[in-house]
Structures are given as structure tokens and as C-alpha cells.
């Protein structure tokens, strides 16, 4: 019997797992897919927002600003790539300037530090490639970019080291209320627990419906992106937002923690039936066109032809204006509708929920020891002497597998052995960035497959590209046969 089952291992599930791991509780995270952060967490703009966007006094505003501060601490403590590069909201008209003033005031009231309104000249000095016709900008130096899947992975791994169990490929099919516990039934088994936290992201409404009539409606909203080659890394130095208008929030252009440029997202509500068909996260020519058009407004010379990947993600929008963080029935909690700035707010959302559960009577006794740190081998950042030393200890670090990003065999084997190990080519990619560069795995793909097969002791034909069953190879050739 678990004290708590958390459904979903995205940024919310892992944040909650991390927060609850501090206490003497028996916790299990059930994830439908084969890895952490494979839903909305892996496909978004990867921005830690400063907090001037949500309405003053709202829950979202509070959690955004708190989350931004907590995320900074966590990234430092848990070795997560985060770069505080600041953000600029660009005004393209006089009306936009008054919107920026309102955002500035709102930000101040929300408690966002160091906000500044800039003239067009000041803005162009900071960002010379911006459209020269801009009217000014709102500068938020506390905004940052983060590696979102590493963030979730770090929180999950720290939770696991402190005793939280993780079970993957466990899609929840039913939840039965017994006398004083729940039976959570998955494709693979049944798990008893005293309490349930629903952090199922885009599937949160389905999970909710297993125990109670719906209190919110999910409106999945797709956003499409371009990821540009490292060569385009100088396009902008800050997160560049466009001034929000009635037409929408506009298209952002931002450096990533790794030095690529991310461009997107548009916003398109999609039919809920499309979820999990592959078509939900498809790219469309119309969507990519919208993103391209929007991006050229901010940076007319942006070189989208040097794109290395298009992708899209689904916002877990609901019919509510704010995040849904509440008790559904006794001992069952929803965390749903976590759209922007959910990635930023996640650590604060976790604390907010834990407080809520404590108020409802959950006994929180701190563990005597809580390991609150995590480090990885950063071979690429090491000095030549350090590299020589690392290779001497483990020669696998001497062999480059991914040529675009200089990822070694040592890095890849480590990703298959770490606390929450990879189980697919994309899992390796998320942990090491092997295959994330300009050749997109063209060279290293076959090698990575070989290493995965070796580490997991399976045949190369059993290696998945991404989710369970997404096999790359379909058999052996005639000659081998």
C-alpha cells in the first residue's frame, strides 16, 4: 500500500514527487509512457517566465513569481542547464507601448524584480537584429531559459534517490475507491494507495473522470516550433516576445540553453480525439507558415532555412482561466490545466499542493536525511587535462558517437545507467543531446542503437526510437538471414 500515487511524470508529477520525497511517505509515480517528461514538458518554449503576464492577485501570478525563484535554486542544486538571459517584450506600435506600460505595472505588483521599459534605441542596442521599426520593449532580466526535460529528470531522479518509486509504461485505466484506499489499475497491474495526485497533463480530465464528474474541460491547443542550427545562435540574445494583442500572444524567438534558436509557437485548438494518435503533435504547413510569418515580424532576417527540426507540443488548456489545483474528492487531488507559465510555476505548484494536502490532514514528517543535490559528468565542458583524466578512468569517454554535439560513448552509456535511465534513442537524446544536432542522428543513430542494445541486453531490432514499440528496424537482411 502506497501513501500516495502520483499519476504522470511530467514536470508537475516530478516536482510533486521531489517535494513529497522530503517527508516520510511511501510514494509511487505511475507514468503511461516509457520516460519522464514525454508529454507537454518536452515540447514547449522552455522558458522560465519572470511573472508580469498573469493578472495581479491571481493564483497563477503568485505561483509564477515564486516558481521562478524556486526554479533558479533547483537548477543550481540539481545540475540543470538554466541561463538567465532576460526577456524583451517588443512593441510594434504606440498602442503596444501602452500595453507594455500595463505589463510593467502588473509585473511590479506581482513582485517581479528589476523590470525596465526600454526605448527603441536601447532595445536595438541590446538586440541589433530586431525589426528596426519597433517602438520599445519591456525588459525582464529575471526571465531565463531552461532545459525542460532535464529539469523534470533532475527532480524525478532526486525524488527516486530519496525513496520515491517510478513505474513506466503504466497507463492508468481505472481507479476504484475501496473503503479507505484506492486501487489504481493500469495496463500491467493494480496498485493500492491512500491518496492520489492526478498530474496527467493533457490526460488529467480523463483521470479525473475515473473518480468524479468533470469540473473542467480540456481544450488541447497545439503550438508548432522551429529549432535552428547552432550557426544561427547569434540571431537574438534574449527571449524575444511580441506584445500581446487581441490576436494572441505572438511568436517568440529565443536562444535555448544549448545555444540553438527556438522559434514558435502558434496556437491552434485541436480535436481531443487526436490526442495520442501522432496527429496531435504533427506539424502542419499552415502552422509553420504562421510561425515563420510571426518570427519575421520580430527579426526580419531570421534564417529559418537553417532549421534542424520542427516539432509541436500540446498545451493542456482548460475552460478555466487559472491552473486547476484542488481536491476532487477526499484524498484525490487534481493538478490540471497547467499551461504557460506552468514550467516556471511547477516547483511552486508542488509546494502549494503539499500545503493543501497538509491542511486536509496529510501528516508531513520530514525524513532524517534528504539528499538534495545531483551532479552529472560534463565531459564537453571539461578542460583538456580533466578530459584526459576522465578518459583514463573510463575510455568510453574517448570515443565520440554524436559528431555534431561531440557526445561520447561514455555519455551515452551513462544515460542508460543513470538513476532514471533512458530506454530509447530519444531517451538517450534527451539525456545527452546525442542526435539533437544538425545531422539529427543521421550518423550516430545506428551507433546509439547498438549501444542501447548492448546496455539493455536486447537485439537492435528491439530498440525503440521513442515510445514503447516505436521500432526503428524491421528485421535482418537476406544475407544475415
Amino acid at each position: 500500500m502506497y501513501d500516495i500515487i502520483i499519476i504522470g511524470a511530467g514536470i508537475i508529477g516530478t516536482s510533486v514527487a521531489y517535494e513529497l520525497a522530503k517527508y516520510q511517505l511511501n510514494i509511487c509515480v505511475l507514468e503511461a509512457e516509457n520516460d519522464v517528461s514525454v508529454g507537454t514538458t518536452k515540447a514547449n518554449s522552455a522558458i522560465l517566465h519572470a511573472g508580469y503576464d498573469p493578472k495581479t492577485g491571481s493564483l497563477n501570478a503568485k505561483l509564477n513569481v515564486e516558481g521562478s525563484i524556486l526554479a533558479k535554486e533547483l537548477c543550481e542544486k540539481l545540475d540543470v542547464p538554466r541561463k538567465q538571459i532576460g526577456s524583451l517584450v517588443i512593441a510594434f506600435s504606440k498602442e503596444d507601448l501602452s500595453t507594455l506600460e500595463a505589463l510593467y505595472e502588473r509585473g511590479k505588483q506581482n513582485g517581479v524584480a528589476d523590470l525596465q521599459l526600454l526605448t527603441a534605441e536601447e532595445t536595438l542596442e541590446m538586440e541589433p537584429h530586431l525589426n528596426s521599426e519597433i517602438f520599445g520593449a519591456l525588459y525582464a532580466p529575471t526571465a531565463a531559459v531552461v532545459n525542460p526535460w532535464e529539469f523534470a529528470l533532475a527532480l524525478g531522479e532526486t525524488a527516486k534517490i530519496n525513496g520515491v518509486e517510478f513505474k513506466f509504461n503504466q497507463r492508468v485505466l481505472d481507479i476504484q475507491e475501496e473503503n479507505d484506499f484506492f486501487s489504481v489499475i493500469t495496463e500491467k497491474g493494480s496498485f493500492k494507495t491512500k491518496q492520489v495526485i492526478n498530474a496527467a497533463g493533457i490526460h488529467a480530465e480523463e483521470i479525473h473522470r475515473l473518480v468524479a464528474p468533470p469540473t473542467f474541460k480540456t481544450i488541447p491547443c497545439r503550438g508548432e516550433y522551429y529549432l535552428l542550427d547552432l550557426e544561427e545562435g547569434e540571431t537574438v540574445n534574449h527571449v524575444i516576445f511580441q506584445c500581446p494583442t487581441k490576436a494572441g500572444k505572438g511568436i517568440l524567438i529565443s536562444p535555448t540553453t544549448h545555444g540553438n534558436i527556438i522559434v514558435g509557437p502558434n496556437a491552434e485548438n485541436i480535436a481531443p480525439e487526436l490526442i495520442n494518435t501522432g496527429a496531435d503533435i504533427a506539424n502542419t504547413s499552415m502552422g509553420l507558415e504562421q510561425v515563420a510569418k510571426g518570427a519575421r515580424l520580430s527579426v526580419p532576417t531570421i534564417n529559418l532555412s537553417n532549421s534542424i527540426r520542427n516539432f509541436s507540443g500540446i498545451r493542456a488548456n482548460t475552460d478555466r482561466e487559472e491552473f486547476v489545483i484542488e481536491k476532487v474528492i477526499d484524498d484525490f487531488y487534481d493538478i490540471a490545466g497547467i499551461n504557460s507559465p506552468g514550467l516556471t510555476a511547477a516547483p511552486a505548484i508542488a509546494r502549494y499542493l503539499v500545503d493543501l494536502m497538509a491542511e486536509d490532514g496529510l501528516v508531513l514528517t520530514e525524513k532524517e536525511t534528504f539528499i538534495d543535490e545531483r551532479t552529472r559528468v560534463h565531459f564537453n565542458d571539461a578542460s583538456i587535462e580533466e578530459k584526459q583524466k576522465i578518459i583514463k578512468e573510463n575510455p568510453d569517454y574517448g570515443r565520440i558517437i554524436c559528431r555534431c554535439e561531440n557526445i561520447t560513448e561514455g555519455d551515452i552509456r551513462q544515460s542508460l545507467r543513470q538513476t532514471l535511465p533512458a530506454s530509447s534513442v530519444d531517451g538517450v537524446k534527451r539525456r545527452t543531446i546525442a542526435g539533437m544536432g544538425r545531422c539529427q542522428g543521421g550518423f550516430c543513430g545506428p551507433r546509439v542503437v547498438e549501444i542501447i542494445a548492448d546496455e539493455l541486453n536486447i537485439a537492435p531490432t528491439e530498440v525503440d526510437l521513442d515510445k514503447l514499440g516505436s521500432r526503428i528496424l524491421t528485421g535482418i537482411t537476406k544475407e544475415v538471414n
Partner: protein
Amino acid sequence: MYDLIVVGGGPAGLAAALSAYENGCEKILIVERDLELGGILNQCIHNGFGLHYFKEELTGPEYAERFIDQLKNTSIEVMLDTIVLEITEDKQVHTMSKENGYQLLQSKAIVLAMGCRERTRGAIQMPGSRPAGILTAGAAQRYVNIEGYMVGKKVVILGSGDIGLIMARRMVLEGAEVLACIELMPYSGGLTRNIVQCLDDFNIPLYLSHTITDVTGKDRLESITMAKVDDKRKPIPGTEQVIDCDTLLLSVGLIPENELSRNVGIQMDQQTRGAMVYENMETSISGIFACGNVLHVHDLVDYVSAESSLAGKAAAEYVQQQNNIAEKDFLTINNGQGISYILPQKIRKENVDKKVDLYYRVNQVYDTCIVSIQHQGEELAKFKRKNLAPGEMETIPLRKKLLDKVDIKELDIVVREA
């Protein structure tokens, strides 16, 4: 201290090293990242290599073997399973391997021969979902020919580049069904002989002026939607056709792999995406040479070998200080009407013996045409050519006589219909 370090042990690196050796260069090292020499030739098990260079038809591995065998009688050193991470202007080479760890090697000259990589799905902004079963033709070729694994059963090829065409035939021979080869342009990007031998002979339809407008499938590819494009290459509504398939191989172009060149500050050519080079394949940094597919993408390995021999010879001369060429005057060769690129881009007259071969590609299909060498609109030489296409690299000679005739700083190469 080495006289010459050659980065890459594929056809370009092998030919350059051997030529440098034959021209008197003594301490030569080839650094190869793979476990064996030969580069991409090792996975090209089809024949058709060597018709120009050896006047006989060889497979890729056989072609490579000819060069590797020659190495055995030389003092050329080889480091396998070793990556070059960085080169510096003063010819320091940073290498890394399991066996030797991180090393700094000093050389007098460097030949860059890193080859090229394939353009990917991300570069062509293809709509649709992103399931397994979509891979570049070269990656598929490695799986099938080297590793012995099949990548699919019902295959569509996007792009009619040579690797795609070769893989179409290969997949059929391995028992897969190849349903279509789809090409955006109104002409094929591959060699005519490959269209005939790999598509026509196997009844694989080639759809020119077509593109893919959608991809479906969650875990594995299920179908693609193909549509005809107009003369602006935009899909024409109403022409869509769905093809059920589990595999999509991309053959949508090759890009020289120039991370090392760029990082050391070598001047690049926007068109070739390789280094700008002088008549002897020397880059803008004296003593660093480039050849093969890292310089520009070739159709035939035979030309790679010829070009690389030039680079190797020049490197040997550089090491022996037979010509300190950096300071001499040069003239620039410009891409004129009809030319997408031309190479070498700069020529130092004093270095030219009898002639320089200019390699070029046209930017559209020409039946019969005149390729003309011009100076400020005045025609200095002209060559009649037939059946020129962007998919086939061509050559014209630039003779010393012509260079001596006038004091010129620039020449334009222009194509016109005859």
C-alpha cells in the same frame, strides 16, 4: 611533429595522403574517426565506382581497397577510431580516442577531408507526425549494408539524389516494396545512369514536381500524402494522393561537414558550403587544404580522388616550402548566369602550370548550351556542352595562355542556350 595531418580517411583523405607522399612529404598521419579506412565507400556496396579513375567498374569497398593497399607500402601513419575535435591556425590538431585519450598533435600542414552529411527532415520543413520509420537514405544504407538490418517493408523515397536512388534498388533487392520516388524539382537530382538502373529497371515510379504534404503514424509511419507542385514548388490542392507505407527514406541533399573549418576561421563559400579554395585546394589559411565532399559535394568518387591528389601534392609542396604562395596576386572566378557554383574560387596565376580545371554546376537543365569564360562582358573562351543538369558536376579548362593574355582580376563563368 608531423609534416602533414590529413583529417579523414575516406576517399579524399586517402588520395591526398598518398599524393603528398608521392610528392616527397615524409611524416604523414591520417586521422579517421571510424574503425576502418574508406569512409562512406564502405557502405556503398553497389558498383559503378572507378570508371574514370581506374577505367574499370568497382564497388565502393573495392575502390577504397585500391588506395588502402597502396598505403601499406608507405610510411603513412593511420590513427583509427579517433576524432579530430579542433584544429588551429598554427596547425595544431586536437584528437581524442579511447586508446590515446586527448592529444595535441603538431603538424606543418593540414588537409581537411571530413566529407559531408545528409540534409534531414528538419531542413525541409516537412509537415506531419514524427513516428519511427523516417530516416535519411545514408543512415538506412548503413543499417542495411553494414549492420545487416532492414529498416522497413513498404518504402517511399523522398528526393532523387543518388543515395536515394541506390537505396531504392537496394531495398527491392532485400525484399521490400518501393512504392515511389518523389522529387520536388522538375528534374532528378541524381545521375541519369542511376535513374535508369535503380528506378526504371525495377519499375519504381519517379514523380517529378511532387512533394510530401503530410505524414501519419503514431509509433511507426503509416502513410504519406503526396501532391503535385506548381512552378513555384507549392503543392497544388486537389492533387493529393495517400500512399500507405512504413518507411520514408530522405535523399534531399548533402552538406559539407565544416565545423572544424569554420571554427578555425577558414573563409567559406555560401554556395558550396565548403571552404573557398585557391587553384591548389589551399584554403584562406595558408598550409590548410581542403578536398572531397567537405569542399563541395561530388557525384563521382573519381573526381574526389583527382581533386584530393591535387590537394595532397600542394600540401607536400607547402611543407617543402617550394612555393610560398600566400602573398601572390590572385584573380577571382565569379558565378555568372546559369551557374550555381564554381570552384576553385580564386586563382594565383604564378601557380598555374598549363591549366586549371574549373568544376561547376549549372542551376537549371540545359539541352545544348555554351559555357563561356568572360571578362567584363568580353568572351575569352567558350565551350559547347550538351545535357547539363544541376545533378551532374561538369568541368571546363582554364588555360594558362588565357590567364597570361590580359591583366585580369576577375573572370565570370556564364552559361547560355546555344
